[in-house]
């Protein structure tokens, strides 16, 4: 049986842990709100971009000389996995579920005899994948000191990926991130960036069906201009979804941590009181039996 002093210390330490998790939960709730707004605000751009590209792509499909971003390199030997995770831990299964999805993907590609390269966006993803696939990780892009992800951050990642693509370093690029559904539900998702996956990009219903457009300059040139932008836009919306998911996951993780700490304090208090009572009883018995012996 632990002594009274030890029990008292434990209660105090659990109580201060609870204070921390409670504070983290509230901070995450506030940040979640902002992250969610940012994710919602970015949707119109991505949707319209996707719609226009889908229409253009349908027009130029099958022609010669279309951008390799649309048609691919004609091979699918080297795969680049862009794994977007958080910079911090303590957010439940958020980072590990993305890493797990990426790991499954890597294993499948390896079985098929493909070459895999990994580009991590976010420190936690690298930490999770380094042990098993350290030699596959090309680089890590950290957004450590950035409070709110801006488009410029995503564009920098996009340019990096495009430069690698132009240098012929990979054939297919897949982006891993967590789609935000609600505070308790975040879905780890893999989406193919290069060559572009039109069914996924379409997103909103295409309402341009009947209308015939004038293009200025011609379709192929507009497409060549838009496709690289689209890569950045896709990365940007993935990063925003990720930010919202991270805060959501952290909020629910910290909520249950706070509740667990509460349960623990109750249990410890019970033991503390019992122990105290037992020691008082013991002292009384000692005094009484001592007096009787006289």
């Amino acid at each position, binding site marked *: 049986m632990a002594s009274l002093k030890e029990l008292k210390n434990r209660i105090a330490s659990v109580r201060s842990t609870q204070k921390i998790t409670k504070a983290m939960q509230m901070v995450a709730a506030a940040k979640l709100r902002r992250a969610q707004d940012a994710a919602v605000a970015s949707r119109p*751009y991505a949707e319209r971009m996707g719609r226009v590209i889908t229409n253009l792509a349908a027009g130029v499909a099958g022609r010669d000389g279309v951008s390799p971003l649309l048609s691919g390199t004609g091979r699918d030997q080297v795969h680049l996995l862009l794994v977007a995770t958080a910079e911090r831990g303590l957010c439940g299964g958020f980072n590990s579920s993305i890493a797990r999805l990426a790991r499954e993907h890597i294993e499948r590609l390896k079985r098929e005899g493909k070459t895999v390269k990994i580009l991590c966006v976010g420190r936690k993803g690298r930490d999770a994948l380094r042990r098993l696939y350290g030699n596959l990780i090309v680089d890590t892009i950290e957004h450590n000191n950035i409070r709110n992800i801006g488009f410029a951050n995503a564009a920098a990642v996009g340019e990096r990926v495009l430069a690698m693509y132009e240098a012929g370093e990979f054939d297919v690029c897949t982006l891993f991130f967590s789609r935000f559904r609600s505070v308790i539900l975040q879905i780890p998702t893999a989406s193919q960036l290069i060559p572009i996956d039109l069914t996924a990009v379409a997103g909103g219903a295409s309402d341009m069906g009947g209308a015939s457009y004038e293009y200025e300059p011609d379709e192929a040139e507009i497409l060549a201009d838009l496709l690289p932008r689209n890569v950045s836009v896709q990365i940007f919306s993935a990063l925003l979804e990720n930010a919202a998911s991270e805060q959501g996951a952290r909020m629910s993780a910290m909520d249950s941590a706070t509740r667990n700490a509460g349960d623990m304090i109750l249990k410890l208090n019970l033991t503390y009181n019992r122990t105290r009572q037992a020691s008082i009883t013991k002292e009384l018995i000692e005094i009484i039996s001592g007096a009787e012996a006289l």
Partner: protein
Amino acid sequence: MADRLTFELVSPERLLLSAQVDMVVVPGTEGEFGVLAGHAPLVSTLRPGVISVHDEKTIQRIFVRGGFAEVTPAGLTVLAEEAIDLASIDQAGLEARIKNAEEDVADAASEPVRAAAQAQLDGLRALQGSL
């Protein structure tokens, strides 16, 4: 004015402007073009320049960089990577930023850093030129 044009300006971060206006002049890659209500469907890329939004008697001028304009029967949508309202720019601040950018280009340590600084500077110069 019977017909009004629905005009939306969208940046990757958010929807910047959504309004009913008379006319919008857009800096297309192959020349500026004005869009009135009922314009034929058109898709055009943009060059860095100024969008003029004409409404009643006021003209709002917005600097945009990178993106494209889409005219549908429903209205005009401009997707721009960067959009700055010219009325909100202060001349002295801009000059200071250009000076800063020039210095960045001058003391860039490596080629990618220099290229990034140069791009920043070009954007600012285009912005200044459009004032």
